[in-house]
């Protein structure tokens, strides 16, 4: 069975882009979520091997979503997705339990590298 990834992002465009990069890298996108609440639900439903999490989303922020998921599964492997300007939020997310980060606009190599690294943990 391949590696299954849950993509969380409020923009369809971003989900599509990230999904394409990951699929090209040989990963399976098992589910997508467009907000925090849905992300938690999908996570429990699919038990993915990895989650990519947009940091800024409506309603529940990426950081709070990370906290909720980590609370339910301490070993969850989450990679934060962020724009350049949100460094301190990323730091917070990592403190909350996220394992790594990738920066928008995406560099496919960097995304795949981060994902591989986190999966090795």
């Amino acid at each position: 069975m391949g590696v299954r990834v849950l993509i969380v992002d409020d923009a369809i465009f971003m989900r599509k882009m990230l999904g394409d990069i990951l699929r090209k890298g040989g990963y399976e996108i098992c589910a997508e979520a467009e907000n925090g609440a849905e992300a938690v639900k999908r996570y429990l439903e699919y038990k993915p091997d990895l989650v990519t999490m947009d940091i800024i989303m409506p309603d529940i922020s990426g950081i709070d979503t990370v906290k909720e998921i980590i609370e339910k599964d301490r070993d969850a492997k989450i990679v934060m997705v962020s724009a350049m300007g949100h460094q301190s939020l990323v730091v917070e997310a990592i403190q909350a339990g996220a394992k790594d980060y990738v920066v928008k606009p995406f560099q496919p190599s960097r995304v795949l590298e981060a994902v591989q690294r986190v999966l090795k943990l």
Partner: protein
Amino acid sequence: MKGDRDKYIELFREEAREYIERLNNLLIEMEENSTSGEVISEAFRIFHTLKGMAASLGYKEIESISHDLEERLEGLKKYGKGVNKEIVDRIYKGMDNIEDLVEEIGRAEGEKGKEDITLKRSPWVKITLNKDTELPAASVAVIIKRIEQEENIEEIQPSFEEIKAGKIKDTFWVRCSNEKKVMEMLVSLNEVEEVSIERKKEESRVPKVGLGGIRVNVELLDRLQNIVGELVVFSSQLSTLLNDEDKKIKGFLDVHYRTLKELQNVVTEIRLVPLSLIFNKFPRYVGDLSAELGKEVSIDIFGSDIEVDRSLLEGISEPLIHLVRNAVGHGIETPGERKKLNKPTTGKVTVSAKRLRGDIMIEISDDGKGIDEKEVLSAALRKALVKKEEVDSLTRKEILHFLFIPGFTTDEKVSEVSGRGIGLDVVKQIVRSVGGSVDIKTEKNKGTTITMKMPLSMAIIRVYLFQSDGQLFALPMTFVDETLMIPGRLFSHLMGQEVMLLRKEILPVYHFKKIMKNHTDYRSKDTILSCLVVEVENERFALTVDKFRGSCDAVIKPLPEPLNAIKELTGITIIGDGEPCLIIDLPSFKYRRIYENTGS
């Protein structure tokens, strides 16, 4: 754990100092209430703690002194005995010894160097991030998480908070257990460019964080204050150069000025220290001196929590001690003399400080023998400071002023009869040099009060500017009560003194020009005269000048030679468009006025 010893020593010194200060206060209480078990218990506990602290660092001498005093106090506690003078003296002595030893430790440890100590701690691992790292802080967070998964992190430099705030370029330092293993792991990470171990240099990189503050060289503070003072003055000068049309620039300048003033306030605040630094020494000082002289003296202190500029405190600490010593040594009588006068055998010295607007007032009073002005007057005649025919015109206050004339009180005989020790002139000189004034009130057999009034800060003061014969003068605002424009016809004469009536108060009038020996005839009944109402040493009078020029901040600069010989001038300052301006020392001026008016 040699690495921690340094920290312990610093902590020990700080705590020991606090204990010593506390003991100082306890001893004062002990002297007043010799049987208070609580006070004895607390002193006992302090010595016990000091002993333990000293023992664990191997300071044998401090340990044994503390032990000795602890045992003595325990004895007192056990047998319910009160303290006597012998034990109090012994504690004072022991405390002095401990204090010296504690300071000595500081010097000794400071010289040792810290090389060997730091080596015992885990070394710093220097981590350089890959240049391509997109979010350095986030990468650092990731790396730290990785390290924490395997080992304990003792310290991170810069701190995590700083890193989070983006205060990181591409290098940071970590101190952790098992650094070799950590380094191996780190090398495998893509975002890490380089990992190395650093053993030294750390003292310069890791700032020493004190408990609640940092130590700053006072000289630097002085310089900082001077620079800020200059800026404030410069800023207010700038705005005087602008025409009324330059409203926009004026607005900016206003903001600029306000910001500078704020900066100045901060700088001023940094420099503040409580009067207790000096005041707390008085009880012991008075105790020692009165015991030595066979007198009984108690001291009351008020306002020791008032904060003043550090250099001001440094400047006035000697005169203060001097005045307290005078009060005990020359003011208060022996118990026998007091009994004869129906006074309580214990004399009282009171030191009190008060804040009045931007000024501070310190009063030192005693209920001793006071000063007999007749004796002062005859001494003044002996010294030819006053002519026989002038004697009648002198007020009581003016007679007492002779005490401040240099050399007057240094005369053995005078200091004996006047009940004041030497050096009132010196006191006055020092207080004057910080822009203040000294006043004396005394009554035979009732006591003496000396009042010092000075600005809270010395470097920059608010002054009132006025013009006389084209020359600009300034008067410290401390002295100025109000400004008036009044027609010459409202002046009248009362017993040979020119006076004016102001809200039912009769004020003597003096003319600045006349005092400056510029006898111009200004007197036309219709001339409107500019008149400053001033108060100096509790006396109000009106001073006419040519023209008011408003108030401003001034940085006082010492007068160059030969102007510095003129004692009616405090200093010089540069105002407005760079015009020099002489600052008047009103107290001296006042006395010059007397001689001018009496025609001598």
